């Protein structure tokens, strides 16, 4: 099952903003990859039962493997991003938003488009374009934890 009804069931705050799907559902990449402009790999530090990286997943060299907000911030810092104050569109800057749950664990990443809208890969579902970050705030992804930016 996939489609707008499923997406709005998972993310009910989307019903209050403009959004639309921009790709078919795809299980080969996740939101972090999409925020990093990669649609071919699933970016996550998945450690095998034997204690090594499990084949099938990508995690950049040099980034800690614990699923913490600090490590996800570091991942984007290594790609030239720095923490900034606002999610508002700023000419000349590319922005990424990291979401976290109520325990501070990272749950999602969105990337700002040149239009000022945001693009998100929703788990194994579709990519969507959404007018604001508020549409994804809620039980599934928690809240916006940090905004990062780098020169466009």
């Amino acid at each position: 099952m996939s489609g707008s009804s499923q997406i709005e069931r998972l993310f009910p705050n989307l019903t209050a903003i403009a959004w639309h799907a921009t790709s078919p559902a795809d299980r080969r990449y996740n939101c972090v990859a999409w925020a990093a402009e990669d649609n071919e790999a699933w970016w996550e530090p998945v450690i095998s039962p034997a204690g090594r990286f499990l084949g099938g997943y990508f995690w950049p060299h040099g980034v800690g493997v614990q699923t913490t907000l600090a490590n996800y911030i570091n991942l984007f810092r290594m790609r030239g991003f720095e923490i900034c104050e606002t999610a508002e569109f700023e000419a000349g800057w590319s922005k990424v938003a990291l979401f976290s749950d109520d325990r501070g664990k990272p749950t999602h990443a969105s990337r700002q488009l040149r239009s000022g809208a945001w693009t998100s890969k929703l788990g194994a579902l579709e990519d969507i374009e959404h007018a604001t970050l508020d549409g994804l705030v809620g039980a599934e992804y928690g809240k916006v934890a940090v905004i990062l930016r780098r020169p466009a």
Partner: protein
Amino acid sequence: MTSSVGARGNPIRRPVGALMLGWPVVNPSATAHLVATSWRQASWSGALRQDSKCRHWGVPRSGPADPTQRTDAQVRARFDELREQWIVATAGAASAMERFRHPAYQQIIGLGQPAVPLLVDELRSRPDHWFWALSCITGLDAAEGSTTIGDAAQRWIAWATEVGYVR
């Protein structure tokens, strides 16, 4: 902390004793609790526990629901049911580890060796996050070093064909 080398030569640091503690498996009574409340709130060390009888990366091989006592058709039916539960419940989850933690996925692992050809068939028809389950059941990572789901799926299919799990 100990170090090892993973995909693309990345060093991995993990807490000393992580392997000694074993990998968590589903406690059947805990599963009921997880389904009744929220599987996302479960911690590996809490509702999910280490089973001291497990010698195969924490995957139970026997017990009241011994998968070896099921027919192929029963395993297929149970697998299909669990797979659908898992796909629907984890559709929006951004984390593969979160997907692996879901009780339906854990129960697929609990099906044991009979689930391997079914998982490989899934990889053939629609590649998905079955690598963790395959690794838990078989005790190896046939796609070690692979960094994409598509490539890992092909490597698991090749392995399963070579060892005779599938044709």
